[in-house]
């Protein structure tokens, strides 16, 4: 099967390769990471029962593919915390413009915690409909995503 590429805006650029974890509806950061943050578990399992795509799926080390984040304005704080614990995804890819909660979280983790999530946004609506759970994605620092 030929590979397919998408080009977005690299907000926190980087190169990596990994397995896609796809939420086609808004990703509720607090609801998804609440349990793993409270338990400080090595592996973060999605605890958002309202998200049928990824509920009870492992998020650690994955490439999280979402439209935007939703929910509590403590969402940024949660991202900053999982960056420190080290049980978060390695990259977050947004089909839409990054939202203010996610932006705050990843920027603060980068500046205050020296932990970089690779973040690319504005990949377009086709991006999410083109990926299947578990597919391998390659990210390059210019914001190019290749579905392999």
């Amino acid at each position, binding site marked *: 099967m030929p590979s397919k590429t998408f080009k977005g805006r690299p907000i926190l650029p980087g190169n990596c390769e990994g397995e896609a974890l796809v939420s086609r509806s808004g990703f509720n950061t607090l609801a998804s990471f609440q349990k793993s943050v409270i338990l400080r578990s090595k592996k973060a399992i999605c605890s958002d029962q309202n998200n049928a795509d990824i509920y009870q799926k492992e998020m650690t080390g994955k490439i999280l593919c979402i439209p935007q984040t939703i929910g509590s*304005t403590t969402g940024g*704080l949660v991202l900053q915390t999982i960056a420190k614990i080290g049980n978060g995804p390695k990259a977050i890819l947004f089909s839409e*413009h990054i939202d203010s909660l996610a932006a*705050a979280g990843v920027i*603060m983790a980068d*500046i*205050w915690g020296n932990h970089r999530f690779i973040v690319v946004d504005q990949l377009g609506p086709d991006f999410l409909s083109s990926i299947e759970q578990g597919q391998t994605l390659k990210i390059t620092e210019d914001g190019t995503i290749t579905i392999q």
Partner: protein
Amino acid sequence: MQLTPEENDILSGKKGEVLQKVMKTVVTYGETFGADHLVPISGSPHLVTSFGANTIKPYFEMIDELINAGLTSKENFTVDPRPMEYDKLNPGFIEKIAFNLIFGKQKDYEVQLKKLGLKNKNAFTCACYLPEVGNIPVKGDYLAWSESSAVVYANSVLGARTNRNSAGIDLMCDIVGKAPHFGLLTDEGRKATWLVEIKTSTRPNAQLLGSAIGMKVMEDVPYIVGLDAHLGEGLNPTTESYLKDMGAATASNGAVGLYHVENITPEAVEQGRSLLNPNYQTYLIDDAELAKVYAAYPILWSITGIRPDYVFIGCPHLARLQLENWIDLLVDALQKNKLNKVSVPVYLFTAPDIQEAYINEKPDTYQALLSHNIHITTICPLMFMNNPLCGKKPIVTNSNKLRTYTTARFYTDPEILNIAITGKLPENSGGK
């Protein structure tokens, strides 16, 4: 982004390494959203992070770094409610142990807040804009607030300008005294992309209405027409309380940061339908639509149909007028039913300044309320239910926000009153 020479000096590190990181955070955040410059924050700050949860260690380390560098908020601030108030809401022995574990850093964090510029000991409320609390921005003020219910109130009812920021960014902006100019801070960002027509037979339940609007428009700006037929024109304390609750529901079921209400909210009064973008969408809300929204609320109790442990009223915190109304309703209902006590303990959540004033002004009535098993507390009911042991309890509420984030079951005000008095849940109501 165009920065002033002073801002550039901070960004280049001339005013210290930690302040440089603060400015870098604010500028990077702004540039992500295409902000062209920073604007001075002109209203008082309000922070969302009020809880000393053991889990958010990186946040406390960041605060220590700020304090050690001698940095504070430019102005004193208010902050969201505390998670615990054992003398007013005793959760039980084991639950207390869990609370003390979850929020083990509460005392230390309150010391940090004081050093950063906490307004006073009563500054803990999500409704900081209530007159008794006094953190009331004026129309046109630039802010960097983050509590979602306060953001939507400040923008819509007060006409101030704040984006829907995340925890942490609020503090960063307050330290430099500047906010990036984008989104709801701009005239363009305050234009409505939805026309919401209210065509209900009676005054719609504020929580259900907000819920319906939030789920439909998500993060967009709605221009609401037809509500003045039920609320009257202009603002008054009753309308403000209604809009407080409606707005909180729009912000929790969607991500609404601003709404306009025709003939009521300040910008709609001034600019009318010129606030509507030409290509707006329309959403009609009638009795059937609200009934549909209510019926679709999921019931998350493991066992349904049981007597609730608590009735929670006041998320966001109750205004004084709302507190008095609920007390009158409950006491009247007890008298009519010749009862001394409510069947389910009732907790009314309000700001510390309001609680303190009520107890001081009406000490006898307050004692009578306690004997009726009616309590006034200042904590956040959401944080109460974040304790896994409390979250499992069957709790009913008239707050859509509390319902959205917890297992609490939503009922309308008359239903809530009836549950409190009889202990019985209404049939064929309260979601599915």
